C-alpha cells in the first residue's frame, strides 16, 4: 500500500475527530478514495480535493468540475435556484447518432444540457449564474445551450441582476450545424441589450473555452477572469499549426498567454474565485 495513502488516511481520521460536526457529510467511502493529479502525479484524497476546490495542492492543477461540484465551491449553500432545468436537445434533429450522444452525456453529467442556469448568491450578492460543463459533448453550444444562456441574460436584464457565466466549451455544436453557429449572434445580441441597460457581466473562462463560445459571450464580460492554465482561444491548435506550418509553443492559448496580451483581466486560482467574485459584485452594487 502506498505509504502516502496511509498518512493521508490517518490525517483524515484525525481531522474527523477534531471536527466531528462535519463527519456526517464526509464519512463516505468515496472521500477516502485517492485521486492522482494528472499534471504532477501527486496522490490526493477525494476529501482533500473537495476541501481544496478540486485544485491539486502540489502543482495547482485545476481539475475539471461538474456543475454540482462547481456550485459547492462557489455559491452560498442552497442558494442556487435552477432555471430551465428540463430543457432538452433530444429529438431536436435527425443527425446520425446525436440522440445517443446526448443520452450518454446526460447520464455522465446528470444534466440535460451543457449549461446549468439559475439564480444564486455569492457572499450574499444575488446573481444570474450560468455554469458550463465541458464533459457534456465538449460543453458545446447548440440551440438549447444558446437559448438557455440568452434567457438567463434576459432574466438578468429584467431583474437588474449581475450576470456571471463560467465558460467551458469547445465551441458551437457540430451536430446542430448552422443553427448552433447563429447562437453566437443570439447570445451576443442579448448581451448588447444587457450592456445598454447598465448590467454588470463577469465571465470566468475555464478550461477549455474555445471556438464559437470564446468568440461570443465568453469574451464579452465587463470583467474577464480566467482559471490558471485554462486553454482559451478561437481556432484550434492543429488547424493553426497546419496553416503556419510550424509548431506552437506550449503556452500558446493559455490563460497566461491571454493575460499577457491583454485579453483577460485576472487569473484567479479557484480557491480564491468565490472571494474575488464576491468583492467584484459588492463593488458593482446598484443603488436603487
Amino acid at each position, binding site marked *: 500500500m502506498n505509504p502516502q495513502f496511509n498518512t493521508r488516511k490517518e490525517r483524515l481520521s484525525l481531522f474527523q475527530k477534531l471536527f466531528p460536526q462535519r463527519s456526517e457529510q464526509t464519512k463516505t467511502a468515496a472521500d477516502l478514495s485517492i485521486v492522482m493529479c494528472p499534471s504532477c502525479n501527486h496522490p490526493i484524497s477525494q476529501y482533500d480535493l473537495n476541501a481544496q476546490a478540486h485544485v491539486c495542492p502540489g502543482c495547482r492543477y485545476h481539475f475539471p468540475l461538474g456543475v454540482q461540484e462547481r456550485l459547492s465551491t462557489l455559491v452560498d449553500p442552497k442558494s442556487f435556484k435552477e432555471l430551465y432545468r428540463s430543457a432538452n436537445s433530444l429529438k431536436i434533429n435527425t443527425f446520425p447518432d446525436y440522440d445517443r450522444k446526448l443520452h450518454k452525456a446526460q447520464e455522465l453529467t446528470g444534466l440535460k444540457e451543457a449549461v446549468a442556469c439559475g439564480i444564486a448568491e455569492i457572499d450574499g450578492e444575488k446573481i444570474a449564474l450560468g455554469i458550463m460543463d465541458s464533459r457534456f459533448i465538449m460543453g458545446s453550444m447548440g440551440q438549447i445551450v444558446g437559448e438557455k444562456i440568452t434567457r438567463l441574460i434576459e432574466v438578468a436584464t429584467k431583474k437588474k441582476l449581475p450576470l456571471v457565466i463560467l465558460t467551458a466549451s469547445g465551441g458551437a455544436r457540430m451536430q446542430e*450545424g*448552422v443553427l448552433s453557429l*447563429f447562437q*453566437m449572434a443570439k447570445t*451576443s445580441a442579448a448581451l448588447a441589450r444587457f450592456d445598454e441597460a447598465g448590467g454588470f457581466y463577469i465571465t470566468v473562462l475555464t478550461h477549455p473555452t474555445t471556438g464559437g463560445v470564446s468568440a461570443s459571450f465568453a469574451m464579452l464580460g465587463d470583467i474577464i477572469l480566467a482559471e490558471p492554465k485554462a486553454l482559451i482561444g478561437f481556432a484550434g491548435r492543429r488547424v493553426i499549426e497546419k496553416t503556419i506550418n510550424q509548431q506552437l509553443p506550449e503556452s500558446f492559448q493559455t490563460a497566461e498567454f491571454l493575460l499577457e*496580451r491583454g485579453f483577460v483581466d485576472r487569473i484567479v486560482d479557484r480557491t480564491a474565485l468565490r472571494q474575488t467574485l464576491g468583492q467584484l459584485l459588492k463593488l458593482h452594487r446598484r443603488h436603487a
Partner: protein
Amino acid sequence: MSPQKAWDRVQAARQPNRPKAMDLIPYLIDHFIELSGDRHYGDDQALLGGLGSFEGQPITILAQSKGRDLQENMSRHFGMMHPEGYRKAMRLAKQAEKFKRPILCLVDTAGAYPGLGAEERGQAEAIAASLKLFATLKTPVITVVLSEGGSGGALALSVCDKLYMLENAIYSILSPEGFASILWKDESRAAEAAELMECTAQDLYAKKLIDGIIPEPAQGFASGIPDVVAQIKDLLRQDLNTLGSLKETVLLDRRYAKYRQIGARV
C-alpha cells in the same frame, strides 16, 4: 431550378470565376472610396472597407475580399480576416452610424484567419465584439453572402436587418472537410458531410435564417455578373427604402427579434 446535392453547391460556391466583392462594388456603388486600418494595429486587406453612393445615397461597404489571382489572394488572405479586420469593420460601422449611412456587408470567407498573430491579437474578442456591436448599431445593415460563409468569421458580418445569399453560396459552422475530419477523422468524406450539414442557401432559407436567395445565371458566371448585380441593386433599393423609413427603436427591435427567434425554444 433543378434540385442539387449539397456537395454540388459547395463546389459551385468554390468556383474561381464567382463574383468577388471587388468585381461587384464598381457596379453597385458610385464613387467608391476605400478606407483603411483599425487605428490600433494595422490594415487587414481581407476586409475591403469604404464608402460610396448607392443611387445617390451615401453607403458604407464592408466586404470580405477574396482575390482574383494567387498574388491578390496572398495579400488578402483569401478573405480570411484577422482581428484588425474585424476592428476595422467595427470602426467603419460606428462611423456609418454617426453619419447615418446604411451599411452593405458582403460575406465571402472560409472563416476567420487561423494563425498565431490572429490569436495573439484576440480573434475571439474581435469577433465577439463585432457580433455585439452590430446587434445594436443604429443604422440599417444589409448583408449578402457571395460564396462562402464560414463559421464565426462570417457571422461577425452577418448580424443585420436583411441577410441574403447567392443561390449557390453556402453558410456553415466549418468547412465540410473540417466537419468530416472531426466527425469521422476522414477529410475525404466531405461530400457526405456537406449533405448532413444543411449548409446551402436553400437549407438556410428553409430554417428562416436568411431573408432571401439571389438567383444565379443558369449557365454560371462565365456569362458575366450583370444579372446578379441588378438583383442585388433591386434588393438594396427596396430594403433601404423600407428600413430607412423605420423608427430607430423599431429597426433595432426587429433586428433583435430576427436573431432571438433562431433555434429551439425552452
